[in-house]
């Protein structure tokens, strides 16, 4: 195979766009870890169910994927709020290990419920076939829209967290939960908002994933591990860094796939994260935590 600049550019672009979707998944995971101190592996299960939901809506001719997404996002926001009130209400008080077990349990339930109802088969939506070319790089329209939406959501979330009072309050309670409580912030309510936002992000990620990739029930487990890996790379509770780490992982994956094979790329990613965990558990982008 020839590795012309345009082929490499093609892979890097596609990788970055895919990576930005991973980033969107990881941001939700990271947000809820930071604010509510919940390690929510089930996050990927929500993404999976949104994918199937959109699929059903499209297959039954009810709506275009993007329209379905527009419904799914607010719906998931509300569901997330409810989940934090019920299923997750006691989770943040548990030890790390218990949380991991609990949310992994929920992930298994969500993943295999999907398999039970939709079967183990691989699904995908037909693409529009439209593509854009510039400088020898050909990109599917869906991929570009997906990347743009993911990037947009990252910027919007970033703006929300850094510009609005509520966003700052969410960051504050992630930064110092006890301090936030003592100065009168309602940490429980902020956790609910964070969970709701995290669900909304999952809905967005699910919608755009449907439009660009194939999927199957076990995708839930894969995404969970992948999101964890990305979030570790970004430094666990740093939301925007998670997005950047997602893009990096996407490019890394694409390049590895080009040079070797998808599974070698994945092996390299896991080996890299393994090294990161051992050497810099605080993530790539942060100075050693002071405590």
């Amino acid at each position, binding site marked *: 195979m020839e590795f012309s600049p345009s082929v490499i550019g093609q892979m890097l672009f596609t990788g970055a766009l895919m990576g930005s979707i991973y980033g969107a998944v990881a941001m939700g995971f990271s947000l809820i870890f930071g604010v509510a101190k919940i390690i929510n592996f089930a996050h990927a299960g929500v993404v999976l169910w949104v994918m199937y939901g959109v699929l059903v809506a499209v297959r039954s001719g009810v709506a275009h994927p993007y329209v379905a997404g527009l419904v799914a996002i607010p719906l998931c926001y509300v569901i997330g709020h409810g989940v934090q009130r019920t299923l997750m209400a006691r989770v943040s008080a548990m030890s790390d290990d218990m949380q991991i077990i609990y949310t992994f349990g929920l992930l298994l339930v969500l993943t295999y419920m999907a398999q039970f109802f939709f079967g183990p088969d691989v699904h995908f939506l037909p693409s529009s076939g439209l593509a854009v070319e510039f400088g020898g790089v050909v990109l599917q329209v869906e991929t570009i829209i997906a990347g743009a939406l993911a990037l947009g959501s990252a910027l919007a979330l970033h703006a929300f967290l850094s510009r609005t009072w509520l966003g700052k309050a969410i960051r504050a309670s992630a930064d110092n939960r006890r301090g936030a409580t003592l100065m009168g912030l309602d940490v429980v309510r902020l956790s609910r908002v964070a969970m709701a936002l995290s669900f909304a992000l999952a809905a967005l990620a699910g919608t755009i994933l449907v439009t660009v990739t194939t999927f199957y029930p076990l995708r839930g487990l894969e995404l969970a*591990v992948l999101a*964890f890996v990305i979030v570790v790379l970004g430094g666990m509770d740093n939301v925007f860094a998670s997005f950047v780490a997602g893009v990096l992982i996407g490019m890394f994956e694409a390049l590895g796939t080009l040079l070797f094979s998808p599974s070698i790329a994945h092996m390299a990613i896991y080996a890299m994260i393994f090294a990161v965990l051992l050497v810099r558990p605080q993530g790539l982008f942060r100075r050693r935590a002071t405590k």
Partner: protein
Amino acid sequence: MKSALGLSIVVFSLAAASVPFWGSGYTINLLTQIFLFGFLASAWNFMALTGLVSLGHAAFFGVGGYTAAWLYLTWGANLVLGALVGAALAMFLAFVVYWTAFRSGLRGIYFSGLTLVLAEALRFAAINTPALGRSQGLELVSLHLPPFLLYGLSVTLLVLTVAGTLWLLRSPLGYRLQAVRENEDAAEALGVHTFRVKLAATLLSAGLVAIGGALHAVLLRFVEPESDFGLSLSLNLLLGTFLGGTGTALGPPIGIAVLFGLREGIARLGELFALGSSGIYALQQVLYGAMLMLVVVALPDGLVTRARRWWIEWRRASARPGSAGFQAGAQVASMAGLEAAAPGTARATSAVPSAQLASDSPAARPRAGGASAPASAYLEVIDVSRHFRGLAALSNVSFDLRRGEILGLIGPNGAGKTTMFNAISGIFPAQIGEVRFKGERLSGLAPHQVCQRGVARTFQIVQPFAGLTVLENALIGALSRYARIAEAREAALAALVQVDLHAKRDLPAASLTLQDRKMLEFARSLATGPELILLDEVMAGLTASEQSQIADKILEIRDTGVSFLLVEHAMRAVMRLSDRIVVLDHGQVIASGLPSEIARDPGVISVYLGRSLAQTPVDRAA
């Protein structure tokens, strides 16, 4: 209790041995799987004993399976040999990974995440290795084994690990493992080499799981990336162990048996409704997930622990008319080695510990060191400085403590008292200067080494090993100087007698009141046979009368030849107890001397009350 367990193991073995005579092929196959997974969960449990949760034991399982299969296919190697080589490889891998992980202090999500990622990396490595058959895996088609061999092997391994766990739980290593699980810092302070203990448990666990992996490969006649390195195997072991009860001997196999039972039940139901294998599998996994959640919420200790608690309560309820006090009375009498220290009142038995502790010649103690050091140089703190992020927590602190002395270390909040404590006990070594005990440098030693040199400490916030009994708590301290359980138990009992906790020795530490917990901290440190005890705010949170009881106890123990360094805010107690007092402020020694001198020292008063008050004459009070 013990013999009952032994008996049930024998009964189980006999029953298991009879199955081949009447069981169908299906039964044998199912039982083989249950026993094999029971064995695997028990092996996983060895690691869980230290409180570490692994999401990636599939890594070791797969290494074992793949090694055995590959060696058999390429070299025709004996499968037993293959399993052992696999175990060795897995242990090597575990050593490298966990050594680094423990060194860098990974905990919680980072540790679990590391194990998870390890298994995933290996899974993709297997997929990418042509010699290992890529995603197809390796098939052991030509394999012919005598009937019932695998069944027999799984039964044997299961019985051996369960018996091994039972033995381990009562061994010095087992107690240390449990101490690490309950509270790593406290364990370290009581002389447990926590790093080595954790590594031992993980290596043992990894090696056994690898053997199980090899057996599984032979049972299924293939190895394959997803089933050998996949997440679901790790989750299976985790769920079985948690369901049955982590840290118990019987929990893991019982949990696995329940799981397999449910799984088969669903399979039958699924067949009834013609769901197809994919649907049935999905339902089984949904059930697993739901069980994981349920166990966390409703049954965090597991079935076995829960059942045991009911059993104890039921017995207590039925035995109530007799002795209302301590339900453990009946068990106590059966405990070996107790009679020696059991006599009724504390007064009569206090001779036992004092004889041990007061033995004046240091050479007579199990740990000799610096026997010739002059009496004046006992604990010496020489020019110790310590900075945190540019802030001086301690600067040029020097003081010494004489043999048999009670030295008070006081100062306002943030003066550096706790930092000083940590510098002595090895948690944060001094950056400049040094700490010497009996002429020997303590600086640079780990906390467990400091403890083994005769300097014990208590914690400001009491940190009992909550899941263990009072006696076991003290026992862990005693194990720092006695290799044999019987000896250690005697020393532990003596320490409990000394602090009047003897009667509560079989209660769980979690059930004690705050005062008793403080006493237990005391007893634990006494059990290490200390020559010097560092007491960190032992009075905090106690009422005046409780404080004075503790103070009496300190004086009593001092009379047996133990020295004390007190960090304390309860000023009345410090003034009463201390022979001398050292005052710290902003990381510097601002005064030292007799309590009466300190109370009049204008510098000290101005630190506490401000300059204007320091100038008004104190004697007016008299």
